[in-house]
């Protein structure tokens, strides 16, 4: 076991994927000599060469569009979008081309493209550097959408998505890049479980708390705090946002009768609403309270000096747990 930051764990995962398959390429802005603005690709160009790890022009549509072409040629490109808000110039290529090309070909093509996106707020950044656009991609048929929550899982998941033959949008919680934990670099991927399965962070009986990405740590901490108040939270890291691991969600809610969904993204039109609808449909007679959502407001991401009031934190999660009990 080695203590690694989430950034370094991703770096090690990428390294392993590149060692395992010579078709894996890394492309994006500043991913080469600089090693990425978050250092996720640090040292990879030096070790794997400029053909396999390369800096691109500053054009996100170009990054994804040429990655599609490389995939059609048999490569497995891993694209870095520097910040969440910068993905939108590539939105057309992702939604209209990447997501639909296999379908268009009646299954004759595979599009093994990974798009890594540092996401979420909490780093005191300027506009467009703190967004959580996952629902837009989860809404798009043909894309797998996943979010890693801690270093060990990040290390495994980045390797899993690179071996996946479907296009994957891979969200990395940027304010957790420097969180450290023990990672088993020697272990296989089996321990991580399948890519589209959720995992239980804390077992409990009173309330199901669903989270992913940057909220994984927040909700794990909420479970500890709630336990001190005598409440037992069943905290689940969804990991895969499309497809959702609904059996895991339903099992938990049938056990607890209460459900709180937590994400940084705006609640309106967010994944929490989708989950609430599905839980209501499948667990209706088990529910003691309506499914509650904790997330961003229906505002653009606010200036960073007040972002702490926008972002869900431990207290807002616990407040939702309290409200769930008030029914």
């Amino acid at each position: 076991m080695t203590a690694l930051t989430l950034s370094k764990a991703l770096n090690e995962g990428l390294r392993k994927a590149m060692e395992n398959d010579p078709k894996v390429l890394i492309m994006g802005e500043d991913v080469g000599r600089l090693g990425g603005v978050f250092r996720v690709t640090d040292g990879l160009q030096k070790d794997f060469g400029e053909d396999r790890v390369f800096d691109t022009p500053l054009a996100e549509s170009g990054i994804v569009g040429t990655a599609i072409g490389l995939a059609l040629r048999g490569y497995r490109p891993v694209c870095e979008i520097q910040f969440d808000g910068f993905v939108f110039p590539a939105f057309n290529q992702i939604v209209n081309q990447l997501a639909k090309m296999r379908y268009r070909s009646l299954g004759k093509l595979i599009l093994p493209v990974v798009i890594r996106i540092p996401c979420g707020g909490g780093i005191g950044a300027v506009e467009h550097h703190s967004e959580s656009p996952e629902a837009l991609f989860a809404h798009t048929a043909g894309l797998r959408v996943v979010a890693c929550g801690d270093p060990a899982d990040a290390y495994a998941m980045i390797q899993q998505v690179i071996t996946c033959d479907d296009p994957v949008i891979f969200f990395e919680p940027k304010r957790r890049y420097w969180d450290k934990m023990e990672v088993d670099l020697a272990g296989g991927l089996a321990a991580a479980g399948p890519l589209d399965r959720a995992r239980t962070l804390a077992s409990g009986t009173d309330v199901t708390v669903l989270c992913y990405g940057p909220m994984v740590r927040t909700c794990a901490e909420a479970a500890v705090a709630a336990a001190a108040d005598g409440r037992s939270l069943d905290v689940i890291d969804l990991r895969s946002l499309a497809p959702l691991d609904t059996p895991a969600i339903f099992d938990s809610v049938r056990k607890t009768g209460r459900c709180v969904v937590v994400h940084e993204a705006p609640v309106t039109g967010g994944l929490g609403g989708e989950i609430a609808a599905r839980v209501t449909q499948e667990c209706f007679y088990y529910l003691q309270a309506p499914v509650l959502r904790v997330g961003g407001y229906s505002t653009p991401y606010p200036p960073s000096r007040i972002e702490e009031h926008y972002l869900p934190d431990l207290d807002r999660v616990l407040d939702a747990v309290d409200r769930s009990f008030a029914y």
Partner: protein
Amino acid sequence: MAVKAAGRAASRAHPKPPASPPLIQLLTPEGERTEHPDYPLEVSTDEIKALYRDLVLVRRMDFEAIALQRQGELGIWASLLGQEAAQVGSARALGPRDMAFPTYREHGVAWCRGLDPIKLLELFRGVSHGGWDPREHRLGLYTIVIGSQTLHATGYAMGIQRDGALGEDGEAVIVYFGDGATSQGDVNEAFIWASVTNAPVVFFCQNNQWAISEPLERQSRVPLYLRAQGFGFPGMQVDGNDVLGCLAVTKKAMRAAREGQGPTLIEAYTYRMGAHTTTDDPTRYRLSAELESWKLKDPVERVRQYLIRSALADEGFFAGINAEADEVGARIRASCIQMADPAPLSMFDNVFTEPTAQLEAERAQLAAYLDSFADEEDGR
């Protein structure tokens, strides 16, 4: 007075572009063979006859498809009428291992790549979104969002570089797009990427003068081929209605790409003689005189004239081609009319490499719903 002043202001704002060299042309509209110092073309009579056959058959296929749309058998059709030479000439310049990325109007390119035209009709009938294997005929799937495929082509070409597949016997890519597409960000990004990576890709722009109802003036103040200069690679303008000119220019550009000299922009100067698609009405935005003037430059007729005036083909040859065209037309018609709709539940196929539980549940849901009408139908 005010109008005049505005006119002067407009002319100040739009300086004339630099004088252009004449169109590259190897066969005049009258069917006269000419030479160009930079584009010598050795082509046998049999090859010219084969090109003529392509042009006629492609035009017939297009004609048949328009008729099928009129009769309700196709949802829509994007006609290539007038652009046969640009497509056949450029596509016949490709080697078997070269890769072509089309728009949705490249029926002539598809023909030359050996794709059964019926696959195109499937798309326009609404039976599939394409569905052919791009690797089989080295032809990408039709791409409907304007300009997107230029980036796919460039990425594919970057893959060729990484595979070490350049050289005399190597591979290169050609990507098709129109004059309207040159305004798209993706096309400009593709130019930049191809330029800075020196990718083996030929950008083949069919300037057919109209982007639905918008004339070229809405897209550019300079001739399109001149744009290449600013991106750092060669660009040239060829008579897009001259199949030999298109063949020669494309051959040279593809060879340069294969040999590691990077991208080229070819502007094939042509004319969309028909409507944008069967839903369009060009009489609302352009004068019939324009069409009449382009009819004099018809891409098929000039080859026929050449063959006749050079006494290279007799009536039997033309009759044979026409008979073959009739057969192609009849076969397309019959295949189209007999084409079955896909099974409703097939809509759930191929979203991912393995179906998700969600998709399987939805498939079962629709199946059960459809089954619920079975009794009702039996009762009738």
